[in-house]
């Protein structure tokens, strides 16, 4: 059988990545309790993206895969970015106030108040 030219990632690297991921989990919980205002979500997502990158590069062998595979991986995130960015560009600029129209019909509202009180 001909020799595979695949890159074998050593367990040492896996252990380093595992440690980094656990560390990242600890840091994200710790940081969640510090009041950073709107930056809490930014920090949480930055840590999550970092953890994801580690998983893709090492656990999923992204770093060692062919350029063609890398292109496919990148394209997936490109399409995801299109969906997120364009949708948010709409939602964050269209309504100055969140719509509360679904609360408007008075009879429904009354019956809902009743059910909250009685439970």
């Amino acid at each position, binding site marked *: 059988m001909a020799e595979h030219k695949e890159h074998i990632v050593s367990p040492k690297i896996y252990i380093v990545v595992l440690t980094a991921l656990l560390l990242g989990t600890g840091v994200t919980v710790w940081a969640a309790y510090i009041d950073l205002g709107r930056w809490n979500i930014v920090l949480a997502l930055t840590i999550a993206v970092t953890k994801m990158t580690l998983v893709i590069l090492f656990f999923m062998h992204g770093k060692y895969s062919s350029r*063609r595979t890398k292109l496919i991986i990148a394209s997936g995130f490109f399409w995801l970015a299109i969906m997120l960015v364009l949708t*948010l560009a709409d939602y964050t600029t269209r309504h100055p106030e969140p719509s509360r129209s679904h609360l408007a019909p008075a009879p429904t509202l009354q019956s809902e*108040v009743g059910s909250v009180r009685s439970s």
Partner: protein
Amino acid sequence: MHRTGELYGQFQTLEQQKESATLGMWVFLITEILFFGGVFMAYTVNRHAFPTAFGVGGNMLDLKLGFFNTVVLIASSFTMAMSVWSAQTSRKKAVPAWLIATLILGSVFLGIKVVEYKQKFDHHLIPGHNFDVTYCSRNQVACGLDDKDLAKEQKEIREGIEAERFPGASEEEATVALNAHSQLYFSLYFGMTGLHALHMVIGAGLLLWLIIEGLKGRFDANYNTPVENIGLYWHFVDIVWIFLFPLLYLINRHLA
């Protein structure tokens, strides 16, 4: 038909054959990224519209269980990676051993998830007719809260109602609004974690098959494509959780 890693006619080299398998798996994972992406999009848009109610809902989750589950799932990704490595280096006995470890960790995750769901059920946080976000602030014993937790819970509900009080709204109307919007949060919580758990269950089934085949000694340096591709799937499910955990459990803790 048993595949053993010989070269198929449509490929010129074994590397090409292997790369095609990896590439195909990634194409599938991209559809999964976009599938979950749509759900994350729904979450983002609704959180943007109702930040207070989503914060109140998020702080009602059990952070200890969520944290423990994150650690368990990351550990299972590690054991999965180790089973791939064992196959690549022809350690035929280690392959099923690492796979069994992965399956156990995956089952622990799902078990904890059941405990969490049951807790939400007891706390009237399942979307539907009996949903009541204020339940625990009024039923200390049923929710097993000590005095400190109860005070925290009541403070959150009070602040939530205040924040939901749109111009001209009475306290009752504001309570209904908080209840409706936090119900939206819990619908997304169960939808997202449920979809994730479904992927875990499918992954567990695939692992079971790998374990059976691994015990027969089928996976080695020449043939390990199933281990590697199911590994890719397992890591992907881990990545989904890496995002679910902070988004659902964490990002409003600083206000609690």
